[in-house]
């Protein structure tokens, strides 16, 4: 029993060290900090719509307008994630402040606005230079839209 206990402790310690090392190397809450610029909008999947063809061939600007008319991020072209949990969404003439949190297993970005409205986005990619968010859209076209950003 003593031997088994020692083996278990060693295995556990090794796994814990490994997890902390990986966490230090790539922590989503650290990687996301900074300023991001929107570069592309597209439909990843369309469930059902009379506009399927349109969704596939539309320009990014048109996809943005079609997919997220009621989302807070729609008017933003620049996103600034601050370490204190605040998020500043800005375009040429609009500036909006919200709060951000990463949830789940680091795969969900939760944005809370002043009026307590909460929006959830799936983080498809998060590297030091790229951020891709997926979200369900129920506006003109029902499906999954994708917004891609690069770090500036």
């Amino acid at each position, binding site marked *: 029993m003593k031997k088994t206990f020692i083996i278990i402790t060693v295995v556990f310690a090794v796994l814990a060290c490994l997890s902390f090392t990986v966490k230090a190397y790539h922590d989503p809450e650290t990687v996301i900090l900074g300023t991001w610029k929107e570069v592309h909008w597209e439909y990843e999947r369309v469930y059902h719509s009379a506009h399927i063809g349109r969704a596939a061939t539309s320009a990014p600007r048109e996809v943005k307008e079609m997919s997220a008319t009621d989302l807070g991020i729609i008017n933003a072209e620049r996103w600034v994630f601050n370490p204190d949990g605040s998020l500043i969404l800005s375009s040429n003439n609009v500036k909006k402040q919200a709060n951000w949190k*990463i949830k789940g297993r680091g795969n969900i970005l939760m944005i809370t606005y002043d009026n307590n409205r909460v929006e*959830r986005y799936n983080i498809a990619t998060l590297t030091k230079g790229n951020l891709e968010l997926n979200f369900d859209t129920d506006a003109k076209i029902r499906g999954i839209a994708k917004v891609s950003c690069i770090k500036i």
Partner: protein
Amino acid sequence: MLRKYSNSRTLGDNVRLGILTALVAGMVNVASLLLFLSFSSNVTGYFAILASELVNGNIYQIALVGSWIFLFFFGSFVSNFLVINLSEKNKYLAHALPLLLELACILAVGVYGTYGYKGSLQESELMLSLLLFAMGLQNGLTASISNFAVKTTHLTGATTDLGVLASMFTSKKFRNKRELRDKATLIFSIFISYVVGGVLFALFYKTLQFKMFFIISAFLLVVILYDSYKIWILKLKRFRINRRHKNDLVPSYTERR
């Protein structure tokens, strides 16, 4: 609920254990879904995520999901390890200890969530790790002491079993078999209890938030103390019988004279 082992358990023992632990599992699973947006009482989905992240080469996700799966496994391992090593000394203690560990994990999440949680990812991941370990402990214990008849943290196997049983009940030959009816009763009560647990958490979580974990702990305490209370009553009865027996054997002072 906890004293008896394997085949000496009755349907009633299994149903009681199943109902209470499924209620806890249902609450914990919905809790982690609503509070952390991840599941904590089943790992099948995490195996699928692990496979897809292995293909993507996402080391962070592989390490995280892999450690969650390991913690569920480790919880189950610890449970059975305690059961097989301590049963000879004290069966009740061997069966109650995994639940006490589970209680400690759930209480830790409740206390930290209520008084110290700031909403960071690291905190969520650690609390989810504790909950996965706790669910592994619970599933390992119920499966171990009931000869794999009671598994309450996930319902995939139970749904399969119920489907098989439902098809068997279409034939009169099987419908009359008591052991099949007992099995269906057990699975069905686990189903209902799991869903009720989930609904209860979802109903009260907006007002109570992390304090709901104290209610979950109370349910676990009922499971632990139910048998302890019975053991004390048995001990008390035995003590009284022995005392009476002693008094009968030793002649009283007046008789001796």
